[in-house]
């Protein structure tokens, strides 16, 4: 018996897992993958259509698609993608290397640590590459079609797709292993803080760009040059993302030699980074596992216990519902990783809204005020949509295999869902109403518009909470422990698509009438404007009621039928 298993063990394992899962699709479970495929196709199709439209627009503006400006845009796209891939791979790897029963199982076997790492790394890369497929594939296909690229471009594209996530994924892995090895405590929080710092860095950079734009003295050309100058670093010759963008552009032109050269550069650099990550894993992985176990058990600090009295603000809830709400609330506030992500976006939005006024040296043009305020309301709605999908939808699923515990309690199953709904509604209202008020006051929107927006924000909060809480109970995933995986799974994706549709409908019905009237009567709000706005709000309220009650009812029916 040899001590070290052969190299094909993990490849066989992956193949068998994939094959068995595919076989499972042949049965009654085909609805789930079909829905995922449909949603993915929808997103990819939308990306493809918008990229195709974008490239057509650039061509109309006499900007050559093979030229420097489009090249710079592609460089920027690949750099952004690489940054996202790096962070997402690092976060996913943290869970699969240090917090999974599979890792503990493999580490107790006579398998070198770097092979366990490589196995988990490939899984993390595959998972985080979904964004690559959904975002980059439509863009690159539309680029190929727009530039009339030849066969070489389409032949090399899969190879480039293999090379694109290697380097950022490896860097994310090295970052994750280094953090666990060297930062003594609270590594999850450290990784989260790093993500926050990167987000704030990006925000600062965008802010500087906006400030420079404001001082651009005349003409579109100067503004364009200012913007391009601000992102020129993305085309630095030493950046691997630039090699990928350059290589694909050369392939589109039919230039085989440079296209292959850039591919080789990109691949070898990625593989070298992967080898380096393997070396780091060989040295630090097991030490990291050991150090993680040394975390002291956290005490329940009393600093934030006052927050637990928030559920008492809902006296109409039954004591059981309030108890469930308090449980969810406590679990949520103690998981920094969860609310930290929401907080980052919230702060970024608040920063953007509070900077709005500075973008206009003089009076804000009425058309801008009208359009921008609606757009900002939509952005807040998007944030609510994403937050409900990420934090509220997984709540029923997170009861996990212990869901029978709740099943045995003398609490109606409607109360389970309603507790989660009110939890979501409370948080959504607390964060969205001030944000919308901030945006409107910065844009000096008239009082009537502010009222319409506040009411629409309430509709958005209630409808999106109802959809997330109700559909979370309709499509639970009790096997999964990671809320981010639940959110991006079948039910989560479908719920997000439905929530986005609701968001658009709610904005169109509840807010658009007022904005329409305002656009028609720039100087004097028309007489018919108020009845129309009121009608819109009433209809919006009905829609919000439907979006709340129907999913909650479906969720209750699903839970009632559930066996434990």
């Amino acid at each position, binding site marked *: 018996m040899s*001590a070290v298993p052969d190299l094909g063990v993990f490849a066989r*394992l992956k193949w068998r897992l994939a094959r068995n899962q595919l076989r499972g699709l042949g049965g009654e479970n085909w609805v789930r993958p079909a829905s995922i495929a449909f949603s993915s196709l929808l997103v990819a199709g939308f990306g493809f259509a918008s990229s195709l439209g974008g490239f057509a627009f650039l061509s109309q503006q006499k900007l050559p698609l093979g030229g420097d400006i489009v090249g710079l845009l592609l460089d920027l796209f690949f750099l952004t993608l690489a940054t996202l891939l790096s962070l997402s791979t690092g976060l996913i790897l943290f869970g699969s290397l240090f917090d999974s029963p599979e890792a503990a199982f493999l580490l107790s*076997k*006579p398998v070198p640590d770097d092979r366990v790492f490589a196995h988990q790394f490939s899984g993390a890369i595959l998972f985080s590459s979904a964004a690559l497929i959904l975002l980059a594939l439509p863009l690159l296909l539309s680029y190929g079609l727009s530039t009339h690229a030849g066969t070489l471009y389409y032949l090399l594209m899969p190879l480039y797709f293999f090379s694109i996530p290697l380097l950022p994924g490896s860097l994310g892995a090295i970052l994750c292993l280094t953090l666990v090895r060297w930062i003594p405590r609270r590594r999850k929080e450290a990784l989260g803080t790093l993500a926050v710092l990167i987000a704030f860095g990006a925000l600062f950079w965008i802010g500087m760009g906006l400030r420079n734009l404001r001082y651009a003295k005349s003409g579109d050309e100067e503004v364009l040059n200012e913007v391009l100058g601000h992102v020129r670093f993305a085309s630095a010759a030493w950046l691997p993302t630039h090699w990928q963008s350059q290589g694909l552009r050369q392939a589109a032109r039919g230039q085989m030699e440079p296209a292959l050269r850039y591919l080789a550069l990109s691949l070898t650099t990625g593989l070298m980074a992967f080898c380096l990550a393997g070396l780091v894993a060989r040295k630090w992985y*097991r030490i990291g596992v*050991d150090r993680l176990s040394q975390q002291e058990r956290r005490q329940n600090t009393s600093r934030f216990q006052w927050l637990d009295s928030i559920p008492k603000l809902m006296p109409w809830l039954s004591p059981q519902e309030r108890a469930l709400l308090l449980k969810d609330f406590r679990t949520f506030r103690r998981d920094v990783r969860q609310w930290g992500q929401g907080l980052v976006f919230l702060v970024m939005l608040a920063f953007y809204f509070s900077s709005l006024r500075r973008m206009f040296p003089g009076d804000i043009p009425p058309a801008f005020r009208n359009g921008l305020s609606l757009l900002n309301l939509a952005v807040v709605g998007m944030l609510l949509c994403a937050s409900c999908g990420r934090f509220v939808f997984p709540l029923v699923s997170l009861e996990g295999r212990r869901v029978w515990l709740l099943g045995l309690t003398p609490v109606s199953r409607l109360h389970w869902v309603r507790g989660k709904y009110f939890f979501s509604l409370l948080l959504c209202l607390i964060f969205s109403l001030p944000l919308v008020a901030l945006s409107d006051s910065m844009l000096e929107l008239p009082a009537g518009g502010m009222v319409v927006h506040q009411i629409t924000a309430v509709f958005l909060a209630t409808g999106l909470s109802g959809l997330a809480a109700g559909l979370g109970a309709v499509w639970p995933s009790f096997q999964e422990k990671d809320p981010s995986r639940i959110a991006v799974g079948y039910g989560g994706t479908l719920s997000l698509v439905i929530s986005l549709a609701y968001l658009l409908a709610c904005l169109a019905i509840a807010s658009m009438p007022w904005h329409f009237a305002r656009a028609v009567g720039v100087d004097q709000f028309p007489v018919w404007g108020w009845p129309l706005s009121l009608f819109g709000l009433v209809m919006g309220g009905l829609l919000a009621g439907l979006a709340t009650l129907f999913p909650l009812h479906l969720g209750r029916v699903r839970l009632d039928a559930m066996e434990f």
Partner: protein
Amino acid sequence: MTSQANTRASIQQVSKQYGHHWAVRELNLVLKPGELFAFLGPNGAGKTTTIKLLCGLLRPTVGTIEVDGYNLATQGLQARAAMSYVPDLPFCYEHLTAREFLELAADLHGMDKQLAAQRMDELIRLFELEKFIDQLTERFSHGMRQRTVFAAAMLPEPKLLITDEPTVGLDPRSVRQLKDILRNHTSKGNTVFLSSHSLDVVEQLADRIGIILGGKLIGCGTLEELRSQASHNGPLEDVFLKLTQTEEQRAGVDGP
């Protein structure tokens, strides 16, 4: 190989610190070939930490652990090749069949294909896995899962089998079966290190028993030796309670 022939594993002066808390303190233990060693202790006493140290999942803050003569810290691969670990919550890949899981275990231990196939047939019969061997493990009950994981752990005929709460969730027939299998395993010169709260099982099976409390080994020996230490000639349950209560009282008098 550094250790003597009558030592399967040795834990020498091992301590493990979690933050400011010492989970295991100055632990010394020698496991001999052919013995079934049972490890007892109240909840939070340091049993699971000791098991994870012995498996190489954790590293001692102080001290050395050797398995089959290999130092776990410096020769981890060789040491882990000589052992198998069955945790209290058995892990199976849900999208593998039980047979595929056994094949994976054989592959991970680098077993020869023919030998692995032969051992698998034996273990499938031994653990009565025939009915569900080709089913995905996702729908397995705890007992079916536990039997599958045990079979996978026994596949490479480990010189040291470490198991945490092996009888939890098993029906009486399976418990009996498991006891026979563990006894049979030690009769071939292999060692079993078992942690359990089922004192009747321990009483029936164990050659030697170690009792840990507050990270310290407060008693170690045969049941007779422990009875003599506790000055109590009753069943293991009484001996265990007496030893741990005496130690707790002493710790209370001495202070933390």
